[in-house]
């Protein structure tokens, strides 16, 4: 007689994700990023104490997908709005979810000063090297030579400037407790990403300063390539320009146990 173990649920939809289909394009890595955040919030058991700040960009509707209180910021201003919430409600978990146009272009002042002040907020920064929602224009993170609808002959750094490495910039801020870059292009890196997101939220929970996880992500639609090629493009082109690393791990964060 063969003994059978009772069936166990080992994989399910995180409770922090609402039961709706997202509007994201097929193959886009926003879905993975959303799921990882949701798993972390579930594991930490802080859903009822969490307030999200949605950006302007493809993830403008993030508030439809996370089952917590949410506000919708003006373009680039999510860190300022999160600051307002966190200062009034310091015991809540406040996070922003921002793309590269939102965070690294129009919202540059707000993100730099939030980090400099050491605001106890967590920023999930989606870097896919392009403006997605408006249809594929050049972003501050667009790689040299990369073709977009507003750099049709490829980004010419002589006239259009150079891509901005946000994690490296923010790591120089004394107020930052945890600033790392991860990538969503394969399962190994997705697992590393989840760990980083957990640390970032734990940093906030303990009041150890500003935390940000930058995520190299895909945009198959606006890059004009199939999803699998998009993942390869991240690995072959983005990772060399945007190295995956821990750029700031404050001494108080290094020894975190949870």
């Amino acid at each position, binding site marked *: 007689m063969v003994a059978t173990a009772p069936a166990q649920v080992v994989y399910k939809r995180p409770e922090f994700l609402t039961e709706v289909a997202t509007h994201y394009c097929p193959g886009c890595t926003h879905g993975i990023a959303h799921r990882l955040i949701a798993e972390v919030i579930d594991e930490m058991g802080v859903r009822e104490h969490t307030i999200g700040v949605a950006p302007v960009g493809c993830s403008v509707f993030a508030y439809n997908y996370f089952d917590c209180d949410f*506000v919708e910021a003006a373009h680039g201003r999510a860190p*300022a709005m999160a600051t307002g919430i966190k200062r009034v*409600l310091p015991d*809540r978990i406040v996070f922003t979810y921002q793309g590269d146009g939102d965070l690294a272009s129009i919202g540059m002042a707000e993100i730099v000063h939030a980090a400099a002040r050491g605001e106890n907020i967590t920023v999930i920064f989606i870097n896919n090297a392009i403006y997605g929602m408006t249809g594929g224009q050049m972003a501050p993170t667009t790689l040299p030579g990369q073709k977009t609808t507003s750099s049709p002959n490829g980004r010419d750094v002589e006239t259009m400037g150079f891509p901005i490495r946000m994690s490296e910039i923010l790591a120089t801020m004394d107020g930052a407790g945890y600033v790392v870059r991860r990538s969503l292009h394969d399962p190994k890196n997705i697992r590393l990403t989840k760990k980083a997101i957990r640390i970032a939220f734990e940093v906030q929970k303990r009041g150890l300063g500003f935390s940000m996880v930058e995520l190299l992500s895909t945009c198959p639609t606006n890059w004009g390539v199939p999803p699998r090629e998009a993942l390869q493009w991240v690995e072959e082109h983005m990772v060399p320009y945007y190295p995956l690393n821990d750029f700031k791990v404050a001494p108080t964060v290094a020894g975190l146990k949870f």
Partner: protein
Amino acid sequence: MARELLEGNLAMAEAAVRAGVQAYFGYPITPQTEVLEHMSHRMPELGRVFLQAESEVAAVNMVYGAACTGARVMSSSSSPGVSLMMEGLSYIAGTEIPAVLIDVVRGGPGLGNIAPSQGDYNQIVHGGGHGDYHNIVLAPASVQEAIDLVVLAFDLAEKYRVITVVLADGSIGQMMEPAEFPPMRPVKTVYPDWAVRGAQGRNRRVLSSIYLQPEEEEITNYRMLSNWNYIKANEVRYREYYLEDAEYVVIGFGTAGRVSLSAVRAARAEGIKVGLLRPITISPFPDARIAELAQQAHAFLVVEMNTGQMLDDVRLAAGGKLPVEFYGRLGGIVPFPDEILGEITRLTSEPLTVGGDPRLSWMKRFVPGS
């Protein structure tokens, strides 16, 4: 509470504290910086939030975030800084949440100067930010009135879920005169059912100004307009002086209204039947009262410290029933009572502007080469 000699900016800041403001976000700009400075020590000492933002853009978005929690929140600035806040003000308006702003107006446009002006009337009263919305706008003419209106601003903002602006020209912010603070109100502990504070034991809430379906945006615009119509019907405030038998009516707000009162008193002493209407809510505008006075008076004289921004609202309310004349000082200059007295005297003795733009005859008389 005893009367004290108080500077306008400090008085407005402390009035907000007394009204139970829980968070202040701002950026230094003359001539309102004393508001920020007062808050920088007063708020922390009371365990409340003070933050000097990196810009007015950030400050207003911090206000936006904090306002979403249902807390009493505010900012203060002066004209160029308020221009930078227009984005955030439009979002706050579109989200239908309360916030209070003090604008201590200075000469402009552009960098202008730091002298008292009323040049922000159109920016604050007729929009500024994009889209269809209205602010309640309160215009004090003394330090005491500034204190009282700051307290009222919070109550009105929360009652109607609209932005309420205290529009004080630079002289109100900078001058000192005796005034009395109200007693300290307790900070609120009960929050409205729309506030975003974490979904503990309830369904989640979302605060946003986005209505992607045009039909939903239209419904929202209707709702905001209905709210505004209710405010217009219930919250118009003004002060009247010597209007019972007035044949001539001077209309001015803030400092221009206050200086006009001195001129009206001097004219009365000369036997001229003149009175003053001083709008306190310049938005909603006292157009019904002005329409009534247009039936009674021979002529209006609008006095402002700008090129005639409220003038257009007065002319609309007057409906062409009588001549409307204009007198303004620009560039950060406050008129003297004698200048306005001269204009009142002229009303009674010279042919007046009937139809056409009253600014033209005003410029012809006062601006060489125009």
